């Protein structure tokens, strides 16, 4: 006899099994001697407990018991609101709007920092634009951010060698 079989017999006795499960149990394990004995024991236990419910004794009289509950209800209704409710109310009325305003202040300060006083225009997307209008000169530029120095270095534009005619001819569509 295992635990599942015991549970199944208990469920059978309490009417919790389906009809097919009950029939299967009746034709199966309950036909054995162990099964039959367990069923009888459980049935006897159930009958005994059902006829003798546990006695709940109340130390006070009925009137005193209910009057105590009534006094509790009345005193709970008369109790002033607790201090943490006051704090929450204060927060809702004053601190929540103030914290919102503080957040807006912070965002405004950040926006001012970004858009008006940003160094080298990197924050607002203003980048350097360097042109070399001369045909003879070209340039490259770089920025040393640590030293806050922007360098444009000019150099002579290398003259491109003229391509060979045969090479050009090869590129052209015949």
């Amino acid at each position: 006899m295992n635990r599942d079989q015991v549970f199944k017999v208990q469920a059978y006795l309490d009417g919790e099994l389906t009809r097919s499960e009950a029939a299967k149990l009746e034709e199966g394990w309950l036909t054995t001697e162990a099964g039959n004995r367990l069923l009888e024991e459980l049935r006897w236990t159930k009958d005994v407990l059902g006829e003798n419910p546990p006695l709940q004794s109340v130390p006070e009289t009925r009137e005193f018991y209910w009057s105590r509950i009534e006094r509790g209800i009345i005193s709970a209704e008369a109790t002033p609101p607790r201090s943490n409710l006051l704090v929450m109310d204060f927060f809702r009325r004053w601190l929540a709007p103030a914290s919102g305003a503080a957040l807006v202040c912070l965002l405004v300060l950040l926006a001012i920092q970004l858009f008006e006083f940003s160094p080298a225009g990197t924050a607002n997307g203003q980048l350097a634009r360097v042109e070399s209008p001369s045909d003879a000169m070209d340039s490259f530029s770089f920025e040393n951010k640590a030293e806050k120095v922007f360098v444009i270095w000019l150099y002579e534009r290398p003259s491109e060698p003229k391509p060979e005619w045969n090479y050009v001819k090869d590129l052209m569509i015949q």
Partner: protein
Amino acid sequence: MSFPLPASLPGRCFYAFLAGWVLLARPSTAVAEEIKVEAMLVWGTNEDKSKKPDHQPVDAKTAKKLKKIFTWKNYFQEKHVVTTIANRTTKKIELSSECTVEIRELEGAQVEVQLVGKGEPVSKATKPFTKGEWIVIGGDDRNECAWFVILKRL
């Protein structure tokens, strides 16, 4: 159509703050300022002395900064000019008989810097130019020397 004002004091303070910010913050971006610029024509060399007797060594702070970026050992100053450029105007600074730099103050704290060499524009740059920043235009010269036009925003 009327604008719904909040009944509570914090709400009204918040709206007043927003209105104040909108009124005060916008003009601040529109107000332009004149810029003060120091322009220098400098020669970089590995020699101890410049070949031109009128050249003076640059001040220690400038030399230190140049040495952090470039490889030349010594830097000599040929010309030094401090000027102020008014809002949206162009200032032409002649640094030598062959070298002129034109600086135009633009919107948004930007400048347009054009370098003119021997009467021909050789470089034009447009960029933000904030206080303490330098723009250095340079190039190689003969005898492993280099020239620098240094613009400092004061």
